[in-house]
């Protein structure tokens, strides 16, 4: 049985698939958020050092992970769109950028609110913080560049090149704590070593990360559907859709 990989690569067929998937991911995200928040505030114990301030970890780390993860996914789709000239791939990349920018802003925001009581400063020109700020500028630059070009297909190409150039920033962010070792602490969670966090704290953080992930998928699918409608408004299937509505 040969799988037809390209069944959902056309905007029209993807539109209906995304429509069916969106509620699935948004309900999962909602449930995971509720469970994650419950663990963060009512199950995870008080930290011996930071007392309650450490609870910011339950939002700071997930959004920071998502800001890097979403950029890689965006660059991936942009590369596919650039290489294969598939306009749906570029639409997905365009749809990811705002959510990625939001998570990057939240990573900086929650980090600053955690840094003030613990480090005594809202902002420090630390390697990790600075490279995360650059990531925010990359996201905004990507969106601005695409908005500045009228023809969507050319905007996709230009955005793809910018996104691919910016990919180098992601490992820099990730390893900045080790290479420069300025202020931000090193990686606490690793797939190889044994966990350095209390189990309930770690589970709470991982559930919140999954919740952010499900939320991103649901939201990007919704935004992609809107972009598909915007760009395909002159097609027959969209007018049929309107006729049916």
């Amino acid at each position, binding site marked *: 049985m040969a799988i037809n990989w390209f069944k959902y690569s056309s905007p029209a067929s993807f539109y209906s698939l995304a429509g069916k998937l969106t509620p699935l991911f948004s309900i999962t995200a909602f449930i995971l958020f509720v469970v994650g928040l419950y663990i963060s505030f009512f199950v995870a114990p008080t930290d011996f050092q930071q007392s309650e301030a450490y609870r910011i970890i339950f*939002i700071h780390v997930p959004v920071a992970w998502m800001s890097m993860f979403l950029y890689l996914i965006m660059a991936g789709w942009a590369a596919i769109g650039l290489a294969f000239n598939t306009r749906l791939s570029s639409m997905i990349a365009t749809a990811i950028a705002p959510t990625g920018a939001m998570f990057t802003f939240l990573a900086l925001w*929650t980090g600053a609110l955690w840094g003030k009581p613990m480090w005594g400063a809202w902002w420090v020109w630390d390697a990790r913080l600075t490279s995360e700020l650059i990531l925010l500028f990359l996201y905004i630059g990507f969106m601005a560049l695409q908005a500045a070009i009228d023809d969507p297909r050319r905007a996709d190409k230009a955005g793809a090149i910018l996104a691919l150039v910016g990919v180098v920033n992601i490992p820099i962010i990730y390893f900045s704590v080790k290479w420069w070792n300025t202020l931000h602490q090193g990686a606490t969670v690793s797939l190889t070593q044994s966990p350095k966090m209390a189990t309930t704290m770690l589970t709470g953080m991982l559930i919140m990360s999954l919740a952010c992930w499900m939320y991103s998928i649901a939201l990007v699918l919704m935004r992609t559907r809107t972009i598909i409608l915007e760009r395909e408004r002159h097609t027959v299937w969209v007018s049929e859709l309107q006729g049916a509505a």
Partner: protein
Amino acid sequence: MNWASWSDFFAMGGYGFYVWGSFLVSLLCIVGEITLVFNRRRTLLRQLSLIHKATQYEQNNETTS
């Protein structure tokens, strides 16, 4: 259950401003983003249906000049 009372919960060990500042802004951003996408979709669908009605109207009333 870590909290003796609700006020204890909101005080968050004296770090309430920072913890709630982080979580509330995150909630605001997420809810804000959802409403933005829904608005974008609704206005687009409204535009498309208007365009659709206009083209229907033109087709029906085509006067063969």
